[in-house]
């Protein structure tokens, strides 16, 4: 059976004055209908770029997709024409960005922004589009939706704006929703509301979700499978329960150890020594080896993601050999 989305060996590099930045360097994953995939990593690990590349949202130049393929329901995304991509972006794959203020046009009313994709892509009449928009606003929990259609973004609070952005992303009933840090700019009580909302809408529509975040707690709550990125590469990929209960890559393990936890009174937090590598220089072997406490000579050799148990792949040579 073919997956809804298959990304294979994707590499996106940026050709800058400082050198070639290997932002994404050989990333593969697939997504099934109705499934939620979490992509975790720290800033600069390439998690956003790996998704933006699929939709032609990388500024070129300086960006360039060096290799790889991405198929969405039989369509070759990386070689699709601008028109084809625009159709997919508008209604079949939607995105939510981190900051709801910059994702909305401050000059347009909420209503006009919600109706736009319906008028452009669905060819609905104005009345039908307005009705659907009001329904959608209600579905994401905005009261007095009919009056709120005429409001501008600055009249909404942060949580409300993110709801509008979600309504906008879901109004065409996309098959895939890519949510890039959708709750990072929000307070925890609002974050809980928004995650709950995404979950319930997903149950209703059966869409697949790619959730990009740096927050392992958010991942644990809603993702079926998780991909961990480090320095432009996938270092571990597994089902959420397998990943959280037996992380098989030293980076994932270190990341979990360095979380200040609500339930343990830790004395000193574990912290990963050193810094992420400079992506303008080619990395030999495992990208984490320079900071890894388990690194050995063999870690300088080329390393690939390998499945070591059911639904669990790691790019650690020692874990693959069963040493860790």
């Amino acid at each position, binding site marked *: 059976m073919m997956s809804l989305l298959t990304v294979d060996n994707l590499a996106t590099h940026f050709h800058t004055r400082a050198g070639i930045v290997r932002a994404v360097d050989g990333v593969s994953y697939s997504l099934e209908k109705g499934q939620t995939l979490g992509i975790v990593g*720290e*800033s600069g690990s390439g998690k956003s770029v790996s998704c933006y590349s699929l939709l032609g949202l990388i500024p070129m130049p300086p960006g360039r997709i060096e290799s790889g393929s991405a198929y969405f329901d039989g369509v070759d995304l990386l070689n699709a024409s601008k028109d084809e991509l625009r159709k997919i972006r508008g209604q079949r794959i939607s995105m939510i960005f981190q900051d709801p203020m910059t994702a909305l046009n401050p000059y347009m009313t909420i209503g006009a922004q919600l109706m736009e994709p319906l008028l452009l892509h669905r060819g609905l009449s104005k009345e039908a589009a307005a009705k659907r928009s009001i329904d959608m606003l209600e579905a994401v929990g905005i009261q007095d939706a009919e009056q709120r259609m005429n409001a501008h973004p600055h009249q909404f*609070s*942060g*949580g*409300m704006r993110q709801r509008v952005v979600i309504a906008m992303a879901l109004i065409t009933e996309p098959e895939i929703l890519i949510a890039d840090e959708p709750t990072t700019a929000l*307070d*925890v*009580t*609002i*974050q*809980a*509301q928004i*995650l*709950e909302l995404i979950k319930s809408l997903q149950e209703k529509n059966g869409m697949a979700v790619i959730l990009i975040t*740096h*927050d*392992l*707690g*958010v*991942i*644990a*709550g809603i*993702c079926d499978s998780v991909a961990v990125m480090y320095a432009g590469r996938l270092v571990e990929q597994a089902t*959420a*329960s397998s990943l*959280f*209960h037996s992380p098989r890559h030293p980076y994932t393990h*270190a*990341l*979990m150890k*360095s*979380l*200040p*936890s*609500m*339930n343990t*009174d*830790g004395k*000193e*937090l*574990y*912290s*990963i020594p050193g*810094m992420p590598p400079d992506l303008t220089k080619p990395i030999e072997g495992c990208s984490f080896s320079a900071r890894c406490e388990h690194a050995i000579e063999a870690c300088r050799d080329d390393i690939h993601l390998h499945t070591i148990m059911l639904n669990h792949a790691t790019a650690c040579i020692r874990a693959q050999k069963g040493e860790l």
Partner: protein
Amino acid sequence: MIEVRRPLLEVCGIKIHFPSQQNKGEIVKAVDGVSLELRHSEILGLVGESGCGKSTLARSILNLVPPTAGTVYLNGESIQTMSRSELKKARPAIQMIFQDPHASLNPRMTVFKTLAEPMLAHKLAAKETVKQAVVELMEKVGLAPRFMQKYPHEFSGGQRQRIAIARALALKPRLIIADEPVSALDVSVQAQILNLLAKLCAEERLSMIFITHDLSVVRHIAQRVAVMYLGRVVEEGTTHDVLKNPQHPYTQALISAVPVPDPIEERNRQRIILHGDPPSPLNPPAGCSFHPRCPIAEAQCQQQEPKLGNFHDNHRASCLLLQKKFVE
């Protein structure tokens, strides 16, 4: 013999009201009657969501925002009644660390200049000895002294925050106010900075007010916690009491909203999801300001204002229902 010492810092009934910019004549009650104490070498976590007034309160402690009412005592002396020269003398005792070290460091000053300037201005070091003092400061926060002549943009986010911490330590303060010092940092770097702050506070016997929206960070670093909602403290106590045994419904919801990095626990636990947004401080609801979002609110909550009441040793909460239950 037990020596009775006044707390290092006493905040008594602070109110900070601003005239509204949009609606003329109306008043924004950013902070509305907060009293706190901070003992020597204690770390107090100040928690709350955006707009609850936690940063404004912190700024009024340094008199950066003069309070509308109330008094701040540092070592028993009122900050508000100090003259400018007295204030200048008192200021080194309180230093601040901000969220974004990119914005709080001067991009045109080298690390050396950034750290040397306050020491020279307050005559804590002479021109000849200041270099040695800077070296010691940099070593204390884990920066190699050879980077002394570099500019902030040449450092990573975590290193910049170390520079900001070194600058705060330069004047040998008694109290540090850290306003979301790790919120802009990645998890692995966040751990390094939290460890550093905890270590420095212990070594230098510093007190700290640690402002954050992240409860798991508070749990890690603070001995006591005060939870703010809409300009008021709704619960206060030791970190253990407040986080393990929260009394106020807002604190309970806040704790329950924090995602747990464990899929099984996260999916099975009971969660309190609050509805709606925090109300505007321009027009706070009558009675208990939390009642429109409170899952257990009763009729009386809409009229009567709750007071922060003690119901355990050093554990206080402001909820009418709780106090009623306690009396019964």
